């Protein structure tokens, strides 16, 4: 039963190691037995899913703008442009200037060469604070600060794509992506907004991005394995990937009045914060599944599981406990994209609903097939370290 204030998805912008755009992703992911694109050498002993070849000019016309961004911001701005194009909003002044935006952001793409030189010098200096002043004042590029700053992904989307209704940046790993989608949906449902750009990006091919996981030993080492099969392997189980996912969420009435194609309806978005040190994660996942009010019958689930041992085994146990659920751990094929993970899960769920077909198994050893047309698809992101979220995506 549709209502004018339903939240519908009218634009999808995706980039991952598999390629760019919803069509390319669907075509690849619909192939049984698709092999992931891996980069095992550059960051050994860690494997990453690298960015595909991207012609930045296609979404960021001015070279000057491209130069003002490090790769993460470029990637996000690019993926946002894909979503705006897909929704028929790009270049439409009226729609762009009234469009709201919530970006799930990380940041911190530092200058690795400058940092390495400072660290090397620190071995022979005791006055490290002075060393820092000396090097940073002379060697930092003045523009780097903004080119890696969290809220400047949104800032660049405003500059490049002219989205200026409002601009908010949420931070906090997968939870930021969950909160961004949840807040955007709530604003549309309550009539606070008619159309919102929401999403995030993650550029893992930078040592500080790997360090952000590895300071707690979360990264998988050694030969690559599918996301569900990393328990007991060397390392922490997480294989990261570069990518981005942006969605255009729109009030149904707004989308239909401008005659747009609707991929899917975004149903309940639920989120939580288990106090994992107190052992609350299993109960929290169960509570979210209950709160999402899963429909009767078999259900496809696009799981954002990262591979991190504790979180992934808890999620797997919860999904396995419901025989109606066929889960797809898409990080097997894309790697874990942190802030972009949940928007990516929602996007893949919307694609399946739109194409009226389930994805084949991504891991034949642990996933089970799904026959028939998925009317509703579950999207999940159980954070590798903290925060949890889920959404139901329904046929339009």
């Amino acid at each position: 039963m549709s209502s004018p204030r339903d939240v519908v998805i009218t634009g999808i912008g995706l980039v991952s190691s598999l390629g760019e755009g919803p069509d390319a992703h669907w075509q690849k992911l619909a192939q049984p037995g698709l092999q992931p694109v891996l980069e095992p050498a550059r960051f050994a002993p860690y494997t990453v899913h690298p960015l595909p070849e991207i012609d930045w000019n296609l979404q960021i016309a001015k070279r000057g703008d491209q130069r003002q961004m490090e790769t993460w911001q470029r990637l996000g701005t690019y993926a946002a442009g894909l979503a705006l194009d897909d929704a028929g909003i790009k270049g439409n002044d009226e729609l762009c200037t009234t469009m709201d935006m919530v970006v799930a952001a990380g940041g911190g793409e530092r200058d690795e060469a400058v940092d390495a030189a400072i660290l090397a010098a620190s071995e022979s200096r005791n006055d490290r604070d002075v060393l820092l002043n000396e090097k940073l004042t002379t060697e930092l590029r003045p523009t780097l600060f903004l080119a890696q700053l969290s809220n400047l992904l949104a800032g660049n989307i405003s500059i490049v794509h002219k989205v200026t209704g409002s601009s908010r940046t949420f931070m906090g790993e997968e939870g930021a992506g969950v909160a961004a989608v949840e807040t955007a949906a709530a604003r549309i449902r309550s009539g606070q907004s008619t159309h919102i750009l929401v999403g995030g990006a993650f550029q893992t091919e930078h040592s500080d991005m790997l360090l952000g996981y590895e300071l707690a030993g979360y990264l998988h080492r050694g030969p690559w394995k599918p996301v569900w099969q990393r328990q007991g392997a060397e390392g922490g189980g997480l294989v990261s990937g570069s990518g981005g996912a942006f969605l255009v969420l729109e009030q149904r009435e707004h989308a239909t009045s401008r005659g747009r194609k609707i991929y899917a309806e975004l149903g309940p978005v639920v989120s939580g914060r288990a106090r994992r040190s107190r052992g609350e994660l299993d109960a929290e996942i169960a509570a979210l599944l209950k709160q999402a009010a899963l429909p009767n019958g078999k259900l496809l689930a696009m799981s954002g599981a990262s591979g991190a041992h504790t979180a992934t085994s808890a999620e797997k146990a919860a999904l396995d406990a419901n025989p109606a659920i066929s889960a797809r751990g898409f990080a097997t094929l894309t790697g874990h994209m942190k802030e972009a993970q949940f928007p990516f899960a929602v996007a893949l769920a919307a694609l399946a609903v739109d194409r009226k077909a389930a994805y084949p198994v991504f891991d034949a050893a642990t996933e089970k097939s799904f026959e028939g047309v998925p009317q509703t698809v579950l999207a999940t992101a159980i954070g590798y370290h903290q925060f949890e979220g889920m959404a139901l995506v329904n046929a339009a």
Partner: protein
Amino acid sequence: MANLRDHMGRPIVAVTGIGVVTSLGVGKADNWAALTSGKSGIHPITRFPVDHLNTRISGMVDFLDSSSKGASLLTYELAETAANEAVAESGLDSSDFGGPLFLASPPVELDWHDRFSLYNSDNKDAGAERLLRVARGLKELDIFETTQFGSIADRLADRFGTRGLPITLSTACASGATAIQLGVEAIRRGECDRALSIGADGSATAEALIRFSLLSALSTHNDIPEKASKPFSKDRDGFVLAEGSGALVLESLEAALARGASVLGILRGCGEKADDFHRTRSKPDGSPAIAAVRAALADAGLSEDEIDYVNAHGTSTPENDKMEHLSLSTVFGERIGSMPISSNKSMIGHTLSAAGAVEAAFSLMTMRESVIPPTINYDNPDPAIVLDVVPNKKRNAEVGTVLSNSFGFGGQNTCLVMAREPV
């Protein structure tokens, strides 16, 4: 019986608790006494050596336990201290708050002291490879936590018993105002009866200072630190980097009255508009800031004539103060010359992610105390900016409504309208 719904039929949002920390001190009482006596918290930097630095002054908070322990721990302590004051004042349970948390805080990065200590704990290979190898051998999560963008909010959620997934946000120098806006919106949507909105920033590291210096954003008037921040003055030459925190307990007026809470003020309206002109400069016609002010007024259901006082963004940079004057004179017309408009930053510097929340706290106190804090260091007015900046000395005045501006890098413009009384 008070009206519980606003002009658009939404729940009216009351403030029932206020907390603040700045370089002037901990808590409302100390801050207000200093602020209204025109005292500056700007002082020479002692936290790290200032060799090679062009700017050697700041408004750092140097008197907390975590002041020398890095941005993450200090930001947490600032947030916790302000929130504790706010929640205590509200009379709500300080370990079972029962509403959502919205935290404006700076982006996190691995602290240089940790980077140095990890690196020098080993001597095989070099650069990032060594750091990663050392990292995976760590037995404690302390350093890891400082690099996770959601960790400060996670700890605060534990500490105060807030409900659900906490939201950490950044809209640069508008962040504190955005945290309040998110709380207001959640209450208006009926998702909750109360919300805890905090802006906190303890990120004044050497690298942060250098980054802003390289953008030519900071004052270099090092010789007399307390005179360096001089919003709207002709010789203003940049902002003064500072730390602080502000926290508000927001509650639907209905819920606040039902439990007999003291209502400290009303959050009447929020407005925002992004700028697509440039990463650090505003559109020359000021249209985004103008639109943000107008959106806040419209959201509050007030006309231009109904704003008694403006708590300016007033950073003391040549660009901001000029653009803020242009925007305000466009919105308020001729009246702008006779409206009091002051900048707290003249005394506390620019607390970045915290600024919007700190200044909302001071705006509410301005109304409650009927005293407008001055813009200090206004010795050399900019002839191009004709404003009543409440120069140098506080002013006693009945203030029923306040507009508080926050503008940030990345085209962020957020404005709040607060009122002393419900409609």
